């Protein structure tokens, strides 16, 4: 889960960079950048959850 979370963080960033490079007009570029940040938010949730599990196991 942790690895998937970090991969999502990277993928979201890649989406943002791709939107900058490939999309010229404002609306599609803005939409893809927002989508990239959304993917990153999902990745952050997964990474955070992956660090909750070991604590419960330790307890």
């Amino acid at each position: 889960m942790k690895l998937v979370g970090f991969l999502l963080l990277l993928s979201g960033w890649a989406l943002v960079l791709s939107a900058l490079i490939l999309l010229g007009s404002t609306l599609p570029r803005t939409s893809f950048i927002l989508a990239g940040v959304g993917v990153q938010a999902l990745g952050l949730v997964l990474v955070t959850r992956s660090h909750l599990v070991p604590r419960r196991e330790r307890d």
Partner: protein
Amino acid sequence: MMPLPVPALSDTSATLCIFFILLVPLAIAGLSLANTGLGRSRSAAHSMLASLCVIAVAAVVYVIFGFAWQGFMGGPAHAIVVGGKPWNWIAAEPFFTRGIDRSGWPASLVLLLQILSVGLTAMIPLGAGADRWRLGAACASTALLAGITYPIFAHWVWAGGWLAQLGVNYGLGHGFVDAGGGSTIQALGGLTALSIAWILGPRRGKYSAEGMPAAIPGHNPVLVLFGCVLALVGWIGLNGAGAILFTGADPGFVVLIAINTMLAASSAALAAAAITRIRFGKPDASLTANGWVGGLVASSAACAFVDPIPAIIIGLVSGALVTFSVEWLELHLAVDDPSGAISVHAVAGIWGVLALGFFGHFPAPVLNVAAGQLSVPGAGDTGQWLAQLVGVATLLGFVLPLAYGLNWVLNRFYPQRVPAEGERQGMDLYELGAGAYPEFLTHTDDFTQR
């Protein structure tokens, strides 16, 4: 490799810069006092020594390696062409700062400010790893931060890198703008602190078997609150010097920068005090202090580009964010961050960076890094929020995985967490052999295993 034009710096600006840069150590002192006061008494000497050591390691490593990757605006850099646009991704300076004229400016001033800034950045994770982070591991982790993470990202923001060129290349406002280091220093340090807190895990006894957190209050609120006052002075220096050197702010803007910094900190502290008063019946000293520093952090990015009223709003939101974030991280996410470094520096730093996109109106000229000239005031403000958002995405998508990855690898070779015996004895006795307060009575419950 692409050479950029070196922007000019007037004698007045350079003199002001030197004055401001000499104030920055007070921010470092303030932060180290706050970190120490928010930790346990049995780790106080360790905390202060760790502060000194990481500042020293950061300065040396940065001068040897870091500055070569970061460079300065107008210095040589490597760029790749993607989609017909140049992406300046890393500096091409020689090691040991051999490529700069140390008797002239702005390069020498940038170097001096950066040596202090990287020290300040390295101090931030110390707060999150308090009471359990080995001294040697903290130094090794700092070497990675000062040699790799910080210089690469700072190059992108402050040395004409691709983030700074978003305005020129893609029409996103003035490009990613961060005058005082809200992203490069604060958010980067805060995200590294999050990585450290995750890798180290919570202190022993912090969470019960049911997962409920125990309160481990800071041992000296006086140190913490005095640290806040020192930090204010240092932050005025940091914001002022950064705005002049990295965004080309006119010397006439330094008063506005100081006012905005003060207002953001004040409103954030008041917000934190009011929220804790309403929720807990009494204002909480440590959360109010966290709010104050959070306001300073949030002020950094936009200090030269907002009026006082938006600065107050930025501070109020920052104080509220820090207060709720500290509780949320501790209660729901099981992140043990004794000094609140993640909330104060990462959360408030990211908020400050985004706030520039919402409130910034650029009456001041902003350095057009691709041309080495000042842009026309007020021109190209549309899309600024998108440039700021791209910067935040870079923090989450590049800085956080890199900081976590480097520290994870380090942890495999050199375990960063002190053994259980070290936590029981306290870091002072275990790692240094003597306590910070030898004449004080030791409470027996302080040594009880939680």
